[in-house]
């Protein structure tokens, strides 16, 4: 079920209505779980069995790890749990990719026999709910949390509909306690938290959802055709147009993904759940590491805690640190999709991070230079960082190898032709206006901290005007067919 459809709106209103009318705690939790399953089933049909399997698998492994009497046994059980999760993810997401590579090498070495592809359906959200589950079993292994007594609670954590199919990636230790509240007057013991829809939560939640819908439907969906015009057949297109296309795609993917996240955060907030923010103005980042502290934060922190740090992080030798960064981003790229263009995107960011770390380590005075503390220095850092970020978006968007090579070459080796770019801009006036609008709004949101909270705190009549404005923009940019979220494919 896409967020930007009437189906979801009706679904969400029904859920809220039920929570307002029925106050029984246990019923509310079971209803939330069933509603989440229905949400998933609506889009994924029989593939809901994978979600349920993952839930049951890690629920019982979590208990087993907790009850294991020695560290060796805990480790073995954790490995089994991870094997199950990652095995499922690997099978559905990467089998055909592996077969394609095998067939390619088989053809290259003239082995003769070609393995037929399985043409497996990619279960929506598998990358996300797999990672959710992993935080649970690893959290228990590390002693960060104890296993939940209620299967319903755990199942809600895995299947919670706002974040189920495209994140943000929740941590069990942060989300599970939100399902419980202390029993009145008792020091120990908890009960299901009653889900109460408060005015404050409703206002902030709807504000977030409105901003999310605006980003997705007004900005991302309207820029998408222009990006297609550049990158669907880029051979012959000049440099400035390629650069413009790359910027447009950067805006598209940011608004698409952060728009989805805003809707998810808003829906969760209305229900009284706090979810981690996933984006913090990444296009104002001034270094590769700064970028990854601001872009898809739940994924980058997950990779840091469950991959980079177990590999040794920055506690081994410098060379090992660079290698760890590279491996982490390589796998991060592969997580995005079973395709070499995503791997290349990951590799590029790995190179950026490792190179930046190398420069900072080798030239510490450079990092502390006065120049970079000035406004001009900040701007230079920002432009350099974003130049590389937008370069990396090209392989993320363009799958065809020849198109990708051509586009990246044109991005780096600028040909300075302008006439066809001007013609392109004139024939895409509407999209350019949307891009300019995004830049202005993005700068405003950077200059005014906590803008969303401020909007949700204004008087009701001004908030009404805000809502009407957003709804009109959304309605008048609706083409009649909802575009799926880009990150649904991951």
């Amino acid at each position, binding site marked *: 079920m896409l967020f930007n459809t009437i189906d979801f709106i009706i679904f969400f209103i029904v859920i809220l209505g039920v929570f307002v009318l029925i106050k029984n705690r246990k019923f509310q939790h079971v209803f939330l779980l069933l509603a989440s399953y229905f949400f998933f089933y609506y889009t994924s049909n029989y593939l809901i069995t994978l979600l349920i399997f993952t839930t049951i698998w890690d629920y019982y492994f979590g208990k087993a790890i907790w009850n294991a009497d020695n560290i060796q046994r805990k480790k073995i059980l954790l490995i089994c749990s991870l094997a199950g999760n990652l095995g499922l993810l690997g099978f559905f997401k990467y089998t055909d990719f592996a077969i394609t590579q095998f067939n390619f090498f088989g053809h290259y070495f003239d082995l003769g026999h070609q393995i037929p592809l399985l043409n497996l359906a990619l279960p929506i959200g598998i990358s996300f709910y797999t990672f959710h589950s992993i935080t649970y079993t690893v959290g228990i292994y590390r002693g960060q949390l104890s296993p939940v007594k209620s299967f319903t609670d755990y199942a809600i954590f895995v299947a919670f509909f706002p974040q189920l199919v495209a994140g943000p990636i929740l941590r069990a230790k942060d989300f599970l306690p939100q399902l419980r509240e202390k029993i009145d007057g008792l020091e120990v013991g908890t009960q299901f938290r009653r889900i*109460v829809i408060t005015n404050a939560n409703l206002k902030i939640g709807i504000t977030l959802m409105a901003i999310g819908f605006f980003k997705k439907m007004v900005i991302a969906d309207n820029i998408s055709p222009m990006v297609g015009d550049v990158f669907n057949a880029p051979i012959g297109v000049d440099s400035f147009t390629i650069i413009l296309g790359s910027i447009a795609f950067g805006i598209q993917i940011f608004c698409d993904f952060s728009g989805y996240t805003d809707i998810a955060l808003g829906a969760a907030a209305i229900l009284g759940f706090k979810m981690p923010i996933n984006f913090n103005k990444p296009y104002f980042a001034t270094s590769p590491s700064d970028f990854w502290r601001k872009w898809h934060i739940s994924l980058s922190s997950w990779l840091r805690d469950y991959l980079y740090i177990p590999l040794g992080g920055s506690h081994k030798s410098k060379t090992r640190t660079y290698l760890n960064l590279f491996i982490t981003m390589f796998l991060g790229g592969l997580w995005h999709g079973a395709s070499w263009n995503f791997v290349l995107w990951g590799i590029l960011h790995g190179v950026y991070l490792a190179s930046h770390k190398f420069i900072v380590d080798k030239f510490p005075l450079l990092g502390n230079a006065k120049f970079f503390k000035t406004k001009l220095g900040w701007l230079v850092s920002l432009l350099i960082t974003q130049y590389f970020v937008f370069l990396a978006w090209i392989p993320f968007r363009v799958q065809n190898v020849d198109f990708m090579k051509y586009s990246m070459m044109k991005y780096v080796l600028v040909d300075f032709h302008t006439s066809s770019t001007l013609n392109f801009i004139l024939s895409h006036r509407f999209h350019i206006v949307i891009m300019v609008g995004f830049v202005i709004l993005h700068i405003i949101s950077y200059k005014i901290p906590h803008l969303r909270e401020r909007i949700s705190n204004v008087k009701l009549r001004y908030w009404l005007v805000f809502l009407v404005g957003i709804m009109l923009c959304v309605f008048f940019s609706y083409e009649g067919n909802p575009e*799926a979220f880009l990150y649904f494919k991951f």
Partner: protein
Amino acid sequence: MNQSVALAVLVAFIISFSILSLGLFLYHYKLEDGTWVLSSDNILVKQRVFFSQKFPANQEKIFLIGSSQIWALNTIYMHEDLLKNNLNYTVYNLGVALDVPKVRMKTIDLIISAKPTVVVYGISDRDFATDSSSSDESQVNLLPSPHDIIQNWLGPQLANSPFDFNFLQSPKLNFLTMVGGLPGDNRFYANPDIYATLEQYNFPIANNTKLQIDYANFESILPLEKNENLIAFKKIISKLHENKIPVIIFVIPQERHRLEHLPDPNVFNLFLNNISQEYPDVPIYSLWDRYADMNIWEDRRHVVMNAKNTTRVYSDDIAKIITNYLSPNTIELDQSLSRWTFNDG
């Protein structure tokens, strides 16, 4: 929970939806003699007016259907060409801007009611492109799908509704047309006499530089099984067959620069193969690259509606195809104009 916030949301929705509905309603309808009627500029109105006319009795009609890419087919030239071979047919060009099979389905009953002798359908890869992305093209629903259940119930309800909600469709397109950012196109050249009046116009032919930098969208094409336009196209052919109306399909010509930039031309070939296998008695002719290097283009997709004979070759070729179909022994088509066959090599 205090209901003020929920009420504010509801009020905001009512206000914005009202503004949307009013804006689109006033754009599509006008007040005439105390009743609201569709604006005569509306393409649906134009089509209804055309089909509601009383055609001369015993008139043999040929309907050309397709998008704006068939507008260059001059029906007067075609009528002259057919007459030379003793075929007295009135040709009507029913091309509609942005037409695709899903849209054409809405007027197929009107087309059938006008009882044409032959329908000639011009298609290209654009007719099977999609503007919506599927979340997973390879997924099959093994269990009942709530979405399909709701759609199957809701579809007939809306179709049988006494209210016409069509004016609410595509708000974006209407909005952009209203503010002038996107040229709306309600042109309808169904009346053959229009082509006579177009003689006085000098439509510009694009030079090579313009064609080099011209941008034509390359929309993605969903696979055969999930392509709604292909499904609609087949329904159109089936309906025409049921009403014993012969169909000729021709592949619309494209300009060289567009052909060179196509991501994967074989995809469209597979579509044609699929259609030809399902309807082996429906002839398909391809003009795909026939005029690719000629100097007859307005842009990469449209042959110029030139009234000075320059682009007559397009009309002549279609007339030849029709003549060959109606009277096979009269003329012989040259090899490049023969029936399309699938080449998977």
